[in-house]
């Protein structure tokens, strides 16, 4: 009816979720920010924690490593997800359901369980190394764990559905008649792929990349278990600061760095592609 009653309705509908968000997310986040600038600490307010982060080559290394791992995981996920998503747009409804279950099943399984499963597969005496040795492909076991390779393998597997689903949605929304038109004009499969399918699925790729990369930046369990003490990521640093060193100020500053990095990516994505396309 009137604008005011519309607002009241909207408020009633959104209100509970908003309250929850403020209570369990925005408030602690605000506290983190206050902690990161030394609020409540002995030294008073200041950028001391950020200075320590910026001046220590250890933390710079961690930030670079975290970013690098996320980039590699994102690339691996895009490369692995694209063919799967493409096949999903090509098969009939029965096969689509099967594929969809296989894509979604990992999402419903605990990350911890999946990471331990990867440890069984990747360790020196693990399934993969044993099979390769039995096939005489290798003599010495490959080092697939406690290094970035293991972390990337594990994270890519965990994050793969977040790449497949937006890519699938994007590929499915491409009008199949465009490909037929191109075909009638003499375009073979490759030309149709790189001139039509690939550019038209760009929004899906951008969405997939954003979802995987942003989640990758803050990943904790998988790098902690598969990377161990040799592959420290930002999330692990934060955990160590809080749990072992009780340095809340530094942990909060690191968390803020991660938050700002993520927010910048999301804003950049919104400018370039539009956030409304993430779930469309």
């Amino acid at each position, binding site marked *: 009816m009137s604008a005011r009653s519309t607002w009241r309705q909207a408020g009633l509908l959104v209100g509970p979720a908003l309250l929850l968000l403020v209570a369990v997310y925005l408030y602690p986040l605000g506290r983190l920010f206050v902690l990161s600038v030394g609020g409540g600490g002995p030294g008073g307010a200041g950028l001391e924690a950020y200075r320590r982060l910026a001046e220590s080559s250890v933390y710079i290394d961690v930030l670079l490593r975290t970013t690098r791992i996320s980039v590699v995981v994102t690339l691996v996920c895009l490369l692995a997800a694209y063919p799967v998503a493409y096949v999903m747009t090509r098969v009939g409804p029965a096969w689509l359901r099967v594929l969809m279950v296989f894509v979604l099943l990992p999402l419903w399984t605990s990350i911890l369980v999946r990471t331990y499963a990867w440890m069984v597969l990747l360790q020196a005496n693990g399934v993969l190394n044993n099979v390769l040795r039995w096939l005489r492909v290798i003599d010495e076991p490959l080092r697939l764990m406690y290094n970035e390779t293991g972390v990337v393998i594990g994270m890519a597997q965990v994050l793969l559905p977040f790449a497949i689903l937006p890519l699938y949605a994007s590929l499915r929304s491409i*009008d199949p*008649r*465009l490909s*037929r*038109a*191109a*075909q*009638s*004009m*003499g*375009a*073979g499969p490759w*030309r149709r792929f790189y*001139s*039509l399918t690939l*550019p*038209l699925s760009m929004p899906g790729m951008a969405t997939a990349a954003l979802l995987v990369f942003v989640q990758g930046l803050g990943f904790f369990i998988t790098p902690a278990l598969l990377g161990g003490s040799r592959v420290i990521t930002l999330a692990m640093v934060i955990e160590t600061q809080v749990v072992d060193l009780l340095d809340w100020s530094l942990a909060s500053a690191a968390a803020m760095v991660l938050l700002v990095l993520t927010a910048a990516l999301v804003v950049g994505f919104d400018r370039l592609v539009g956030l409304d396309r993430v779930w469309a």
Partner: protein
Amino acid sequence: MSEPLVTLRAVSKHYGRAIAVNNVSLDVFEGEFVTLLGPSGSGKTTTLMLIAGFEAPTSGEIRIRGASVVARPPEKRDIGMVFQSYALFPHMSVFDNVAYPLRTRRVPSTEVAERVARVLDAVRMSGFAGRYPRQLSGGQQQRVAVARALVYRPSLLLMDEPLGALDKKLREEMQSELKDLQRTLGVTTLYVTHDQQEALALSDRIAIMNVGDVVQIGSPLALYEHPATDFVAGFLGDVNTLDGVVAGAETGVVRVEIADGIEVTVTTAARPSAGKRVRLTLRPERLDLATIAGGVNCWRGLVRGATFRGELVRYDVELGSGLVVNVSRPYRGQETIFGPGQEVFVRSRPDDWRVFG
């Protein structure tokens, strides 16, 4: 006669147990405009897709320029295609859309620019090269789609209801433009539509399809004047369909009783035996109304309804015992317009009736 450009020989397409195209044979000659006309589900689009190569025939032979193309993918058939949805590439400008088939053929870029400009000029879209499809109206998109299908001079242009998405006025405009363009370029065209007016306006020949069969092929005039079946008569233009029993037959003339005391005299070469059940058709515009009786096939009738359409008036006239015929009379300002309830005489010439048995 010269070798046909496209030849279909006994082509069938089955989907499981459903028969989409049944034993169709068709020749399309160089420079011809042939239309596949039929109601939805008649197999006309499937036939087009078989020729384009997007569907494979269950049996039969398809040849283009004498060579079998059944095993050839669509991209190797040298066809141009215009879809009802236009299928313009949304991420490319008009120029890039039209240049697409040329670039696919690795035509040098200066020649691409030249040929795209020329074809855009031909479809009156010269000023729109930099626009994107979403910035164009339906009719403009249509023109670009046609330009894109013609720019590489394919042997054969296939069009699947290309004007189906346009409103009536624009459709008629585009019809004459398409026809002009086709005649100027001389491109052999196979056109699919369910719109009989469009088929009549555009085609050199029409193939009428019904439930997978080609029922009749011929020029628009031949089909209109000499339909092979009552389906063709009814599908191409309006028609009165009347069932009756043969009362008698002399040389060249048959008398059919269509109701108690109403007999139609029909000129026909056929000589059905007396008592046989037949179906008669007659176009509404071949019936006339008069205030006085006279001639053969003249019956008393009662006007039940009259609809003024501008250049003509349509009447429903009851001939007695519930037998109603449609009459279409031209109106040029002089003619009497009859009103409902008025008594009239309905007249027709024996030559204008068709008999199907």
